[in-house]
C-alpha cells in the first residue's frame, strides 16, 4: 500500500505554493491600491511583477512535471475538469499580475489610467481568490484519497496562501526599504491574525483527519504527525513556519525582523504544500498491504533483472566463442 502520494511530488507542491503565493500577493497589492494607500505607487509595480514571475515559475514547474511537455498547451482543453480550471486560473493570475504591474511604470502608455487600473485590481482580487481555492477542489476529485476530501481544505488553503502572500508583500516592501509605511504595518498586524488562524486550521485539519472514519485519512494524518513527514510538518510548518514568526511579534518590528519573519512564513508555506500534497495516501486495494512496490522499488527490480540478463547473455556468448 502507498506510504505517500507518489505521483505528484516536489515540483507540483512547489507549483501550488508559488501560484498560491503569487495569487495572494496580487490580492494584497490590489487591496492596498483600492484602499488608496500611498505606498501602492512605490511598491505595487515591482511587487506585482514579482508576483507574475513567481506565478510563471509555478506554471513552469507544473510543465516540468508533465511527461509530454510539448503538449502542455492542451492542459486547458477540458474546462469541465478541475485541473483545467486550475491551469486557467493560474494563467489568469500571472497575466493579471503582469498587466496590473505595468500601470506603475511611467513609460507604459496606460500608466495614468487609474480607472482601468482599479478595474484590473478588482479582477485580480477575484482571480486570486479563486486561484487559491481551485487546487483544493482539484485535489478533492481524488475520491480514494480521503485526506483531501474535506470541504475544510478550501479555507485551509485560503488561509495558508493569505499568510504566504502577505509575507511576500512585506518581504518585497522590506527589500525596497518601504516597510516603515503605515500600510505595511497594518498588513503585518493582519498577518498576525492569519498566522494564528493558520496554526489553528492546519492543526485542526490534521487532527480532524486523524480521527476520521476513513482509514486512509487516518494513515495520512499519522504520516504527518509521527510518520515520514513529521520532520517537515513539525519543524517546517509548525515551529519555523508558524510558532517562531508568532514569537517574533514580541520583538520590535525592525526591517531585519520583518524579513526573517517573512522568509520563515514562506518556508513554512512551502513545507505545508509539500506535506499536504504528498501525505495523502490512497485507499488500500485488498492485498496491497502485502505486495506494494513503489516506483523506485520496481525500477530497482527491473534494473537488477536487466543486469542479470546481460550477465547471463555475456556468459553464453563467451561459452560459444
Amino acid at each position, binding site marked *: 500500500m*502507498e506510504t505517500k*502520494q507518489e*505521483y*505528484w511530488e516536489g515540483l507540483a507542491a512547489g507549483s501550488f505554493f508559488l501560484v498560491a503565493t503569487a495569487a495572494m500577493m496580487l490580492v494584497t497589492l490590489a487591496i492596498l491600491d483600492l484602499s488608496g494607500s500611498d505606498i501602492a505607487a512605490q511598491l505595487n509595480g515591482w511587487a506585482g511583477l514579482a508576483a507574475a514571475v513567481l506565478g510563471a515559475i509555478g506554471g513552469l514547474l*507544473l510543465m516540468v*512535471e*508533465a*511527461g*509530454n*511537455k510539448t*503538449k*502542455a498547451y*492542451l*492542459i*486547458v*482543453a*477540458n474546462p*469541465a*475538469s*478541475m*485541473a*483545467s480550471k486550475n*491551469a486557467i486560473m493560474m494563467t489568469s493570475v500571472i497575466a493579471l499580475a503582469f498587466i496590473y504591474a505595468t500601470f506603475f511604470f511611467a513609460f507604459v502608455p496606460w500608466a495614468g489610467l487609474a480607472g482601468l487600473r482599479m478595474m484590473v485590481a478588482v479582477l485580480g482580487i477575484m482571480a486570486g481568490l479563486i486561484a487559491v481555492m481551485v487546487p483544493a477542489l*482539484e*485535489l478533492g*476529485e*481524488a*475520491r*480514494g*484519497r480521503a485526506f483531501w476530501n474535506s470541504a475544510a481544505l478550501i479555507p485551509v488553503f485560503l488561509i495558508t496562501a493569505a499568510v504566504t502572500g502577505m509575507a511576500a508583500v512585506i518581504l518585497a516592501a522590506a527589500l525596497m526599504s518601504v516597510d516603515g509605511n503605515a500600510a505595511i504595518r497594518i498588513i503585518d498586524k493582519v498577518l498576525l491574525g492569519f498566522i494564528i488562524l493558520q496554526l489553528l486550521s492546519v492543526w485542526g485539519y490534521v487532527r480532524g483527519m486523524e480521527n476520521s472514519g476513513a482509514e486512509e485519512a487516518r494513515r495520512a494524518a499519522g504520516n504527518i504527525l509521527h510518520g515520514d513527514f513529521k520532520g517537515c510538518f513539525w519543524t517546517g510548518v509548525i515551529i519555523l513556519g508558524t510558532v517562531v514568526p508568532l514569537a517574533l511579534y514580541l520583538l520590535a518590528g525592525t526591517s531585519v525582523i520583518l524579513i526573517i519573519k517573512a522568509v520563515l512564513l514562506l518556508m513554512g508555506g512551502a513545507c505545508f504544500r509539500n506535506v499536504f500534497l504528498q501525505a495523502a495516501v*490512497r*485507499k488500500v*486495494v*485488498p*492485498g*496491497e498491504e*502485502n*505486495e506494494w512496490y513503489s*516506483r523506485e522499488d*520496481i*525500477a530497482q*527490480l*527491473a534494473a537488477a*533483472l*536487466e543486469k542479470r540478463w546481460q550477465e547471463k547473455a555475456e556468459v553464453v556468448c563467451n561459452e560459444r566463442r
Partner: protein
Amino acid sequence: MRWGMLVDLRKCVGCHACTVACQNINGLGFDEKWTKVLRVGPIGQFPNLSGYFMPVPCMHCEDAPCVEGCPTGASYKREDGIVLVDEDKCLGCKFCMVVCPYGVRTFNEKKGIVEKCIMCYERLEKGEPTRCTETCQLKARYCGDLDDPNSEISIMIGRYNAKPLHAELGTKPAVYYIIP
C-alpha cells in the same frame, strides 16, 4: 452495451499468467502491469488460515474520476463503457494517476504518457475475449455485456452476488469479484 469483467477469486491461484499475457500482447515492459495480481491474507489465526489472490485491472468505471479529472480530455469513455487514453492528447501530467482510487494506471517514461488496461477492445469488437480472460487456465475471468441480463457475466454476478471493488466510492466499476 457495457463491457464488464468478472473475476472468480475462488478459482484464481495467483499464477500471474494474465499479467504476463497482457504484457506480451501490449508490448509492456517488466515494470508496467496493466493487470496486477495481489495476494490477500493470510487471514485468521493458525491453523485456521485462509487467503486468496486478487487480479486488479482497470475498473473501467462508469463514473470514472480519471475521465472527469483529465485536463486534456485524453482519458475518455467509449459508448460501450471502456475507458481509454488518447495518446495524442495525453500530456503526462499524472493527475489521472493521482485521482484513480485503484492505482491501476502506469506512467510510460519513454512516451511520457499515462497508460492503462484497454480491456482488449479490438479483440472484443472481433468477438474474442480479452487476452487475460483467454489465457486464464482456471477460467477465473469472464468478460461480457453488463447491460444484457441474459449474458453469462450478468447471470454469474447475480448468482454469486459478485461485488465491485470499493463500491462506496461511487465510481461504479465494471469489474466484479466473486469473493471467496
